[in-house]
């Protein structure tokens, strides 16, 4: 719990920190309800990148000159900020990569390739994003690993009994999203880790959606791997984070090969650097790491407890108002502390794509489709949904405009 004097975010001030929110579409200010796909950039992050690129840029780690020293300090400083934000004890547990997808691929290709073989099992929940599915299917294809699927209980929560059943079969890794990008379900990671570890399995947590919305400590959650993306955290595209336990990283072979990840290269062979450098081949996304760190500091300045409270409040309000739209069905848990973030729904008689199109005319930006979660769509028995997703800057008037737009969609479709 926050001990700060403020108990609520100053939404007006926050909204003024997002330049994109003043964008008009069809003559109306955008109601950006698509932050789960990619968030807008916060001014503090834009400015940190701009300062860096105009005054301090150089390649890192390899130079004896002032700019290179400054760039290195800023890049390693960004690593320290990320470690602090996610509650990691050591900044060298933080590997920078392109996005959450690549972070998970590193685990599958390095840890997975080394530790899993024919007949070994990986458990995945049916609510995983493709990025926490496809790398494991590719590994299954290459190595004969088997995938166990864990379904949902009523109320769209992870079925912990199914998890236990999978663990009983001898699963070596559990891939689980911290926050579903479709259902808004928060998975009980600490409990999942407890059960997985008791059964000798590791936990690969996908934090792409959770990181901007939940106070976060990988130490408290006791997971083994955690992945996230800068562009969902009000930072730039082109930057992702893999956090992994130090002892695991130390044993993991390199994945992408090239400059900066080596100790010594000869014609005969190569020895590799220690983590995190071992996993950061070539020139890293320097300004992107700096941009991500600036966004995280901005979030920390607000306080993640307050951010979380705001996100829950706006989710609850959206759920309440959506219930007013005739023929609309919402997926995901009922309002609770374990329900925050994206709200997915279908309207009888209007395809999600058309819903999104009509909302766009109202300058309400939402996404429609399978949300890179086709197995979940199959599980829910729908080909696609419309998804409204929220951010630290979302206000109630934007939800109201969503509802108006949906009612208009029904009119257009003569329902």
């Amino acid at each position, binding site marked *: 719990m926050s001990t700060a004097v403020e108990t609520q975010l100053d939404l007006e001030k926050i909204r003024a920190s997002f330049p994109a929110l003043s964008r008009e579409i069809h003559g109306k200010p955008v109601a950006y309800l698509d932050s789960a796909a990619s968030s807008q950039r916060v001014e503090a992050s834009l400015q940190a990148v701009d300062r860096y690129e105009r005054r301090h840029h150089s390649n890192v780690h390899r130079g004896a000159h002032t700019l290179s020293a400054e760039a290195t300090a800023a890049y390693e400083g960004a690593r320290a900020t990320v470690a602090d934000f996610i509650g990691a004890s050591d900044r060298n547990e933080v590997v920078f990569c392109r996005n959450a997808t690549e972070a998970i691929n590193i685990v599958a290709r390095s840890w997975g390739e080394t530790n899993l073989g024919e007949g070994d099992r990986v458990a995945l929940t049916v609510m995983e994003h493709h990025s926490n599915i496809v790398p494991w299917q590719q590994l299954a294809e290459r190595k004969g690993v088997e995938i166990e699927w864990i379904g949902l209980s009523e109320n769209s929560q992870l079925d912990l009994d199914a998890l236990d059943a999978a663990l009983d079969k001898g699963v070596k890794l559990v891939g689980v999203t911290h926050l579903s990008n479709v259902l808004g379900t928060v998975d009980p990671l600490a409990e999942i880790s407890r059960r997985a570890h008791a059964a000798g399995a590791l936990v690969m947590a996908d934090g792409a959606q959770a990181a901007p919305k939940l106070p976060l400590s990988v130490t408290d959650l006791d997971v083994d791997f955690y992945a996230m993306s800068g562009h969902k955290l009000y930072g730039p595209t082109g930057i992702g984070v893999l956090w992994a336990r130090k002892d695991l990283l130390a044993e993991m072979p390199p994945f992408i090969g090239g400059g900066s990840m080596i100790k010594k290269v000869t014609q005969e062979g190569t020895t590799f650097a220690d983590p995190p450098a071992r996993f950061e081949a070539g020139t890293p996304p320097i300004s992107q790491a700096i941009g991500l760190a600036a966004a995280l500091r901005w979030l920390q300045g607000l306080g993640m407890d307050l951010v979380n409270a705001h996100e829950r409040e706006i989710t609850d309000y959206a759920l309440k108002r959506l219930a007013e739209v005739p023929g609309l069905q919402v997926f995901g848990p009922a309002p609770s502390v374990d329900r925050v973030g994206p709200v997915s729904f279908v309207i009888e008689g209007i*395809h*999600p794509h*058309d819903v999104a199109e*009509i909302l766009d005319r109202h300058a309400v930006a939402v996404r429609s*489709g*399978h949300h890179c979660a*086709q197995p979940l769509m199959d599980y829910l028995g729908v*080909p*696609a949904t419309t998804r409204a997703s929220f951010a630290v800057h979302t206000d109630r008037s934007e939800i109201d405009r969503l509802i108006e737009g949906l009612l208009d969609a029904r009119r257009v479709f003569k329902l």
Partner: protein
Amino acid sequence: MDELYRDQILEHYKRPHNFGKLDEYDLDFEDTNPLCGDEQHVFIKLDDDGRVEKVSFEGQGCAISTAATSLLTDELDGLTRDELLQIPKEKVLELLGIEISATRMKCALLGLKAVKGASLGASADWDDEGAPGDPGESESL
């Protein structure tokens, strides 16, 4: 009246022509719009001269893709496989009679792509991304 969702489009969306699976068919193909997950499966029965005798389609789609395929399948009678492959994209846009934005182009053309796939027996290769923009001038977008 709504420009995009005019009556004719809604009519074809709600009651698509040639919808369902043929009992007997010579050609069929399922194509998907990987971005939104929509799928359409086209079935074609040829007569003895190798011309389209019957055609139908199945699948879940938006108003645009459903109406487009519904309208298209009304037009295929008597065409040969080669002629199916010759159908230009503009034909579909003309049948729809509405302006299709770059974002919806994939929807409008999904059925035609499936028809061509059926005719080829393989996924048709084409570019329906729409024209790329000018990234240096994103202000003017």
